[in-house]
């Protein structure tokens, strides 16, 4: 077996990464460009698009909405994810496959199908659309991701440690608090961060299920109709990109720490 890669492979890999990143990096680039349209050549540096964001009341309230939905979603999805992931990694029981299959299904369904079916049920039962309905939808969307992160943290976490703790006289709660929790805490934090990031950026479900209170992506969607507001949207988008990047990086570091503790290996989703 050759140890040396074909010479075009590393070049292709570099080009591929450039293809992935270049479009995304245009947002920060044009957010500090002193021009009302994103055109080349660049027109000089400015912070003015960011300054425009500061006093915008609509934007600030949308950001608070997204924050509230994101936090609630992260907590709920992670709590439900802990139950599901623990059950799947710890026990063997009949019905495990179809049940976890249903929980993971939103990952491979078009989001619009998830969104309209939730909308139909909520309207049919006379529920008012609000940030609560958005949160309910977001938990559903985040569950598969939360499950994957937590399963990779719980997997390989042997019973022996918990049994040893019980044998040494710890109560069930003491074992959970002093043995189980420290082992899986990084995975739980990672799941919280990933769920928050997904909810914060999610558009379709929020688009269908939100009432009069917009989340941040919905606010952006509304702004896209006005060409003159594009630079401010780019500035806002840049802040969101940086936020997502930081949260996801922390999540991955934590998840890897969790995996190292339980002696398995992989990457987010692998």
């Amino acid at each position: 077996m050759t140890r040396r890669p074909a010479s075009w492979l590393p070049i292709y890999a570099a080009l591929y990464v450039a293809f992935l990143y270049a479009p995304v990096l245009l947002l920060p680039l044009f957010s500090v460009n002193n021009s009302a349209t994103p055109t080349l050549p660049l027109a000089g540096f400015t912070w003015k698009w960011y300054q425009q964001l500061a006093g915008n009341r609509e934007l600030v309230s949308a950001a608070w909405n997204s924050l509230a939905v994101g936090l609630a979603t992260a907590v709920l999805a992670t709590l439900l994810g802990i139950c599901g992931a623990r059950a799947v990694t710890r026990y063997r029981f009949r019905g495990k496959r179809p049940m976890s299959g249903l929980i993971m299904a939103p990952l491979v369904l078009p989001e619009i199908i998830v969104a309209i079916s939730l909308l139909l049920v909520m309207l049919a039962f006379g529920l008012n659309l609000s940030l609560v309905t958005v949160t309910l939808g977001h938990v559903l969307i985040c569950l598969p991701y939360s499950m994957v992160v937590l399963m990779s943290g719980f997997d390989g976490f042997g019973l022996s440690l918990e049994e040893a703790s019980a044998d040494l006289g710890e109560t069930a709660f003491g074992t959970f608090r002093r043995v189980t929790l420290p082992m899986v805490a990084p995975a739980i934090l990672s799941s919280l961060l990933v769920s928050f990031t997904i909810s914060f950026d999610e558009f379709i479900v929020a688009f269908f299920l939100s009432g009069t209170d917009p989340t941040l992506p919905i606010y952006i969607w509304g702004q896209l109709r006005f060409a003159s507001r594009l630079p401010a949207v780019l500035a806002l988008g840049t802040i969101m990109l940086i936020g997502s990047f930081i949260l996801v990086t922390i999540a991955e570091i934590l998840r890897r720490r969790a995996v190292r503790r339980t002696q398995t290996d992989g990457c987010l989703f692998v």
Partner: protein
Amino acid sequence: MTVAAERIDAIVHERARRQSFHQSEQFRGLALISPTFLYAFILLLLPIVVVIAHSFWTQNYLTIDRTLTLANYRTALTDPMYLDHLMRSLGISLAVSIATVVLAYPIAYYISFHGGRHKNLWLFVIMVPFWTSYLLRVMAWKVILGYQGVLNTGLIGLGLISEPSSALLYNTPAVVIALTHAWAAFAILPIFVSLEKVDRSLLEAARDLGDGPVRAFVRVTLPLSMPGVISALLIVMIPTVGDYITPRLVGGTEGVMIANAIQTQFGRAANWPLGAALSVTTMVAVTAVAGLAVLALRALARAMR
């Protein structure tokens, strides 16, 4: 006394039986997964059943007529506009899934076979853009392909074209490009996982038996990684068929997809049953196309071996 002893015995036995059920893996597993499962059951499975039910009903101004009918499906399958949207959506999702898989395979191969100690870092670098807002990533293509966009003004600046081209944005190719970019990273993971499972000694065996690197790849690596290729294809094809943002932002009037029609039925047109029938039709159609693609790939893998 014997009667009492028997009763005690029976009670003890019954209690032990009940306890063993409570402590059994079956019970504990079900109890622990049930909150999560019930959540998905109530908020995903039941709503989908409600959608399917609606697709057989009729909208009667503000009320729903619950007489069963196939009229919605007749509209969905015969109205040229819906048929056109559906066919374009299927074509776009097929093109996008093939493009992402073809583009992703060499990367997954490079990371799996030559990533060395940096495999996790590579995967992380590739996944990061995927975690940023989907809306913003699609919006970036509007900035690139627009009439006053980066590509046009850049090419003019370089002197390659004299006036901006309006052919870049608001058409089907623009939708395919934006979607391929948005889903690129997602296709890498399943392929990478299946490549990691390829037994490296099989490749050595192939080489020892006289296969060159290309032949060994085509006859060993590629067929063995086919499960990953198939799941990558599905994990891209099925969600993209119902994409709403991309056609709205970069598709223009030519690149309209079925999700836009579905949204109209639930919004302005207020015809839920027709929207439901369009949704069900789309899911059935994309499942059929995906099934055919899987069969074709399996046959291909068999033929190569």
